[in-house]
């Protein structure tokens, strides 16, 4: 069952988050909401619940005045033009578990919304406080962007503030700068060849995995860094033995590759085809097909040894005589 407004408010108090609450008749639009809290300073927000062609979901939460161009947003996410549209009403109830007209970042407190990506207007940070619905349209709460951040962290989410009005070019040398916001299980660990290292925090949530490199503003080119992050972690974790640092593992890898290639080449057909010459044929094939892979392993083994030696040498402080 989805969180109720009261449960949310209690949660906010528990977290000692500063907020003000205003009850009012049910409102379905920002204009209607403005009638009741428009004079209280701070920023009114509009909240869009969006869906892309692969049914991935997004909440875009922005100041009411911020212009959000859906075509631009779609491109910046790497979904091409027109790749994003309003999510269907059913999704509101099913995923966000809020009523119509009540889209709010606070809906992410619900487990059902764990795969929904969140984009927050960087304009929030310039406001003293911003208004959101606390899971129900008959109330508005206002709080500072930092407190929203605090709340999101408490539910395992990263609050990333984006310049929603920016329109950076997207092309061959400029990958979509918001591509990291596209939720996906597969981009995080795309067939890593070796052991996988668990990501920090909640592995379900792709957004929190980008903690390392997603800074506060995402204006410059940022491409799905999740894969790179994993590779970095794999590299760091390679202070454990790997094929690149341990001779035994290297040789094992070489022999494994050679044997499996050998086995795949020696079959009934090939025996029949080449007869006594099969040996020469297979030997040639092995050289041809394994040469590049093995050279690559070997050079990286060499480079690793050198790098480790170099590090040791440059950090060596000889004892004063």
């Amino acid at each position, binding site marked *: 069952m989805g969180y109720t407004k009261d449960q949310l408010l209690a949660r906010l108090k528990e977290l000692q988050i500063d907020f003000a609450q205003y009850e009012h008749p049910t409102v379905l639009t920002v204009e209607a909401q403005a009638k009741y809290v428009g004079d209280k300073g701070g920023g009114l927000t509009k909240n869009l619940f969006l869906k892309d062609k692969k049914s991935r979901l997004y909440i875009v939460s922005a100041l009411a005045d911020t212009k959000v161009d859906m075509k631009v947003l779609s491109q910046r996410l790497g979904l091409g033009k027109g790749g994003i549209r309003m999510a269907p009403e059913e999704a509101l109830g099913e995923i966000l578990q809020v009523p119509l007209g009540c889209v709010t970042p606070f809906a992410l407190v619900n487990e059902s919304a764990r795969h929904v990506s969140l984009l927050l207007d960087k304009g929030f940070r310039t406001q003293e406080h911003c208004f959101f619905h606390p899971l129900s349209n008959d109330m508005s709460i206002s709080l500072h962007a930092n407190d929203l951040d605090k709340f999101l962290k408490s539910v395992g989410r990263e609050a990333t503030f984006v310049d929603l009005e920016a329109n950076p070019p997207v092309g*061959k040398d400029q990958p979509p700068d918001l591509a990291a916001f596209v939720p996906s299980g597969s981009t995080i660990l*795309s067939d890593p060849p070796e052991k996988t290292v668990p990501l920090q925090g909640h592995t379900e949530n792709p957004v929190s995995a980008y903690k390392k490199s997603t800074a506060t503003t995402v204006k*410059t080119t940022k491409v799905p860094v999740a*894969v790179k992050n994993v590779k970095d972690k*794999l*590299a760091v974790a*390679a202070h454990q033995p790997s094929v690149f640092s341990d001779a035994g593992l290297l040789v094992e890898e070489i022999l494994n590759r050679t044997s499996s290639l050998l086995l795949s080449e020696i079959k009934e057909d090939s025996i029949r085809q080449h007869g006594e010459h099969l040996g020469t044929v297979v030997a040639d094939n092995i050289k041809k097909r394994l040469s590049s892979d093995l050279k690559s392993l070997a*050079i990286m083994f*060499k*480079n690793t040894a050198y790098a480790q030696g170099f590090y040791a040498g440059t950090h060596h402080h000889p004892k004063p005589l």
Partner: protein
Amino acid sequence: MGEEELEQEQEQVVNPWEVSAKDGGKIDYDKLIDKFGCQRLDQSLIDRVHRLTGSPPHVFLRRGVFFAHRDFNEILDAYEGGKKFYLYTGRGPSSQSLHLGHLIPFMFTKYLQEAFKVPLVIQLTDDEKCMWKNLSVEESKRLARENARDIIACGFDITRTFIFQDFEYVGGSFYNNMVKVEKCVTYNKVVGIFGFSGEDHIGKVSFPAVQAVPSFPSSFPHLFSGKDDLRCLIPCAIDQGETGKMSASDPNSAIYVTDSAKEIKNKINKHAFSGGQDSLEKHRKYGANLEVDIPIKYLNFFLEDDDELEHIKKEYAAGRVLTGEVKKRLAEVLTELVERHRLARSAVTDEMVDAFMAVRPLPNMFD
């Protein structure tokens, strides 16, 4: 006067920022060679390389991917006489992800390093990107280090390779040479070459010197001190942005080194323009048009086995092999490449990048 200008507009365009053919056709490489004062890399030169290095010439040489040179014969003459040279290449780190097109000059350079057993300097022009792409200094520097990882993963030998980024290395002897070069080039000349206007900022105007100076050994006193007559060979590409893209119009169709086998297969199937016929019967009858077939073009680049490539081309043109089969083979070849790269990249640690980029002597660089 007017006529002359009109003629120029219709010519093909090759400058630091754009490569386009006349009327959207194919690049005329002979005209290009002529215009830049180069010569064709013909078979006799390729054979000479084979003889001198004792190893088979790289696939890119055999297939004409690298097709022109200037004074390469002279470097080979010197090499034959026991006089070595060093290699110089570089990258402008503007994006974190590299696609296959970006890797090509590095793959070729790695072959040259290995075959000739010579040192290499790799320049990361983070300052250029900071200036032209308006990135912050921090971001440019960060991208340079990220790109260094992919470059290292191409398999360069750390005992013969010095990677540097402008924001860290420019100064000392390097800067001395920059000023010497700058003094030789008038403002008018540089405006003529690069098309600067009064509105372009001053950083851009003298930047060309930064890229010229690595070709002088005295720019690297920690490597080449005392070897002032050491020659420098610079492999470079003209339209490297285009390769790796399955569809010219869709930048997202390029094969990135981070793509999974599945993504590679999909990109090829979805975007790679096929020269095959519309229907099975027509294809069996007329065969494929190899000229426009994108998968064949990429197999030409990346399938190392000459015999296999010839066989595929022959059978495809005769209609005996289908587009699907060619695409499948291409997917295999590219996946193998990308996975090898990924595995190598997983070996690259911060310490390794630091070591490649450390200003240090390379005592074994010619061994």
